[in-house]
């Protein structure tokens, strides 16, 4: 049984290790956060409401979708459902983190998931080993999660301040499509995933006529259904 001092020292080490592991990724996160801020600044929605998504939702792709739906005055149910569908992938991360987190206290298991983002998951999941001790599990994750959280609050705020002054001729709105492409391509990691992406994309294009935002939900359901059928047929 390690002493109290040893555990505190290990916790600090693991936290710093997490901060170091996530640092290179901040170069990819920063432009994304700036774009979220620029999207907020460009629309009619109050900047404080827009920025509050950075700590209330804390998930860039969903924040952009939510802001755009609020700007276009979409139906409330669509403005709520679309970002939640985009964020459904976090359930997958939660499933992957559940076994290592099962060693932690109930309180930790209640609040640590708040910091569970794409990047915190990717880095922590690759660091954990089957026999990782609870201190490593908690503090390495906290090192990545807290760093990402602080950076995100700052860069989205900077994006709002800077964004109001950027000219439309720069076509910076295209960066939104690019962010989603940058997330999409690595997510197409199997043939069922490719089927899900192709069907999702095609149905979204075909349903452009549907009232604002509902097409994305229809396309997502169709994509997951088609991908599941492909998965089932391929695994038989």
């Amino acid at each position, binding site marked *: 049984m390690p002493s109290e001092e040893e555990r505190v020292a290990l916790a600090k080490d693991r936290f710093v290790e997490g901060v170091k592991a996530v640092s290179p990724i901040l170069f990819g996160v920063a432009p994304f956060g700036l774009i979220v801020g620029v999207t907020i600044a460009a629309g009619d929605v109050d900047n404080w409401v827009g920025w509050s998504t950075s700590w209330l939702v804390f998930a860039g792709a969903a924040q952009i979708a939510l802001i755009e739906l609020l700007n276009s005055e979409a139906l409330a149910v669509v403005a709520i459902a679309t970002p939640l*569908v985009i964020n459904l992938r976090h359930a997958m991360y939660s499933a992957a983190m559940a076994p290592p987190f099962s060693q932690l206290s109930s309180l930790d298991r209640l609040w640590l998931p708040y910091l569970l983002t794409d990047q915190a998951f990717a880095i922590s999941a690759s660091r954990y080993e089957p026999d990782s001790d609870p201190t490593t599990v908690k503090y390495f994750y906290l090192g990545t999660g807290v760093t990402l959280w602080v950076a995100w609050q700052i860069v989205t705020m900077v994006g709002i301040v800077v964004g109001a002054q950027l000219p439309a001729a720069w076509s910076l709105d295209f960066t939104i499509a690019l962010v989603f492409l940058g997330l999409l391509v690595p997510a197409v990691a199997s043939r069922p995933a490719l089927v899900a992406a192709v069907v999702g994309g095609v149905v*979204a294009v075909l349903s452009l006529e549907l009232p604002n935002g509902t097409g994305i939900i229809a396309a997502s359901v169709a994509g997951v259904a088609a991908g599941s059928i492909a998965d089932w047929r391929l695994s038989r």
Partner: protein
Amino acid sequence: MSPWLIVIIVGIGTYLTRLSFIGILGKAGVPSYIERPLKLVAPAVLAAIAIPQLVAPADVVDFSLGNLRLLAGLVAIAVAWKARSIGSTIVAGMTALWILQWLF
């Protein structure tokens, strides 16, 4: 509905999604009939958002060579495939779009 209320509901819903399996599961793990479809959510949703922005930038399907965003998007997809980073995908796509806009 006030934008504040919508944002708060989305925030609570997102938190509950993150909490989901961590909150209810122990070491047992997730049954595969839940895990497998969950893995398909990301590609389906992301494609549903990204593809229309390339294929129909002005809300009308446009497969012509005049659709510069589609061409720049193809460049970005190639870079995303090789580099697997959002940062380089953004830089490559924006550079391609600016060059195309300057040329045509």
